């Protein structure tokens, strides 16, 4: 059974007129979990979050919180707090007014509001800004103000819609760490929407990958990275994403063009898609013939792009010294690094 803070979606369908945005989403989020909804834009992840918040109705299916059906409950009765992508701060109120607003709405006495506002502001480091208005804050400070407003009344569910997307790269990394620390210290079940797979990998206890209105995989970051369930997930997770090459699976080998490469499993002869993470690509004596097209030095690592005739393959390595643009090489990989997918369904074999 679901304990305090647990959330469940059962067969949730969302239609806007003739278009279906969500095709029957099932999801169970454990109490206290940091759960990320990950997917490209238009995949239905934000709609799912808004359904959890009660800001969107469902066309079919149920939303359960702590085992209770809240599908028909308006947003105010669900005891959830949300940080919007735009922060949605109230521009005519001070930071203190913004953070204290949810408490004021439930009739908290003023002295108590003042205390709680200060406590929440301290947790996100904006206690010195309480008398400013949102217009006088930087982007990062506005974001913290929105966070403080969300945590001030200790909701049972904490929803975040791409909260870091409006921050610059450096601030995004810092805030990511703080967000994780904050969630752990509060222990509030958190659902976080992002299209950034790095955020999902670093923040999530578990995440769900959304593609075209469907959840295609749910798991821990490690599980999803190590064993993507479909070609789409494989192509979405990882920087750069997995190399995907059509091949003929024949016994214990994969034939890619003229190259014959050993794989860890043997099966009946059939067409497959071979997937190899860029970090697992090796330059070998035998393998797929390719030309070095581009060497991108990122300082701590290097991305090498190879042209193998009809497609581009990527390799990620610590440093590069042995190849230069224009070199002709052969590419191979360890048999256990190979992922195999069905070319017709896209499913993992």
């Amino acid at each position, binding site marked *: 059974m679901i304990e305090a803070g647990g959330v469940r979606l059962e067969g949730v369908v969302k239609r806007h007129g003739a278009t279906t945005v969500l095709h029957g989403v099932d999801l169970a989020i454990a109490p206290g979990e940091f759960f990320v909804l990950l997917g490209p834009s238009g995949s239905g992840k934000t709609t799912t979050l808004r359904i959890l*918040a*009660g*800001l969107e109705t469902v066309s079919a299916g149920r939303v359960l919180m702590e085992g209770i059906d809240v599908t028909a409950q*308006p*947003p*105010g*009765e669900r005891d*959830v*707090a*949300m940080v*919007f992508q*735009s922060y*949605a*701060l*109230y*521009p*005519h109120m001070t930071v203190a007014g913004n953070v204290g*607003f*949810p408490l004021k*709405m*439930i009739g908290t006495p003023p002295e108590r509001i003042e205390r709680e506002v200060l406590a929440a502001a301290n947790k996100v480091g904006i206690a010195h800004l309480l008398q400013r208005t949102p*217009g006088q804050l930087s982007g990062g400070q506005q974001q913290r103000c929105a966070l403080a*407003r969300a945590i001030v009344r200790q909701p049972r569910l904490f929803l975040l819609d791409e909260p870091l997307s409006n921050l610059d790269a450096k601030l995004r990394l810092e805030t990511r760490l703080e967000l994780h620390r904050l969630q752990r210290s509060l222990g509030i079940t958190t659902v976080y929407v992002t299209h950034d797979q790095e955020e999902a990998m670093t923040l999530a206890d578990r995440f769900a990958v959304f593609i075209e209105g469907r959840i295609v995989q749910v798991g821990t970051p490690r599980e999803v990275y190590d064993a993507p369930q479909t070609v789409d997930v494989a192509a979405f997770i990882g920087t750069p994403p997995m190399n995907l090459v059509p091949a003929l699976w024949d016994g214990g080998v994969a034939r890619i063009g003229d190259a014959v490469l050993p794989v860890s499993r043997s099966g009946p002869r059939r067409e497959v898609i071979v997937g190899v993470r860029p970090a697992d690509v090796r330059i070998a004596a035998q393998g797929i013939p390719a030309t070095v097209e581009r060497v991108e030095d990122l300082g701590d690592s290097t991305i090498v792009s190879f042209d193998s005739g009809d497609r581009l393959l990527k390799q990620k390595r610590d440093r590069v010294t042995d190849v230069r643009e224009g070199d002709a090489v052969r590419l191979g990989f360890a048999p256990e690094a190979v992922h195999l997918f069905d070319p017709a369904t896209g499913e993992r074999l």
Partner: protein
Amino acid sequence: MNGQRPLRKLALAIVAGTGLAVWAFPVLWALLTSFKTERDVLAYPPKFVFVPTLDNYREVLFGASSILPNLASSLVVATLATALTMLFAVPAGYALGRLRYPAKRVSGFYVLATQMLPPVGLVIPYYLALQKVGMLDTYAGLVAMYLTFSLPFAIWLMVSYFEDVPLEMEEAALLDRAGRLRALWHVILPQVRGGIAVTTIFVFLNAWNEFMFAVVLGGNRVRPVTVAMFNFISVEQTQWARLAAGAILAMAPVILLGIFMQRHIVKGLTVGAVKGGGRR
């Protein structure tokens, strides 16, 4: 490059000066005339140097043809019309701007369509309607008729202000347990303060300046200042100096309102132009 700047400034000053002169000329002319005697008014060529007199003001304020009761009448009509208009226009504008309901497009178009009708075509039906219900020459009757054109105009203006408030702000308030009414009161209305000020001023000015409906639907009891001034023009003679004094007195509240609310008006007018301008 250096030579262009002052030249540009001079050209701008000339254009602005010309515009201002064209706009201000009738007002200044009326102001001058209001301090002249009837004899000076008719002097040709016009006199710019004359002995100023306050007789005209004394006459139109405290004389036999005092316009004070008419100024009061105008104030009652304009204030009532404005208050009632805003009372309905704010919630209606919010509904049209925010809520999703099936006939939204149609009702929005209807509101605009009422603004396209020539008012002169409505005077006779309005007269007949008010006569039937015995409300000719009453404040209630005149105000009710003013509502028929000020309300659509005010709703239409308010819709654009409400549409500028980000939906997410309202959703945030709903999640913060405000409920729709308290979200409107605590979060949405404060954002459209400028818009409410602008709309109020426009509606008030329209009602204050209105002449045609007032002259037809009013009478001896309800006679706004615009109609009263008309009395200075008669078949035998036109009392230009008194008319001018009356006009200055009638214009004064309008001009003062404009000057005091200038900041609000300009802000309110530009909010829609710059996206998010109202949020900073």
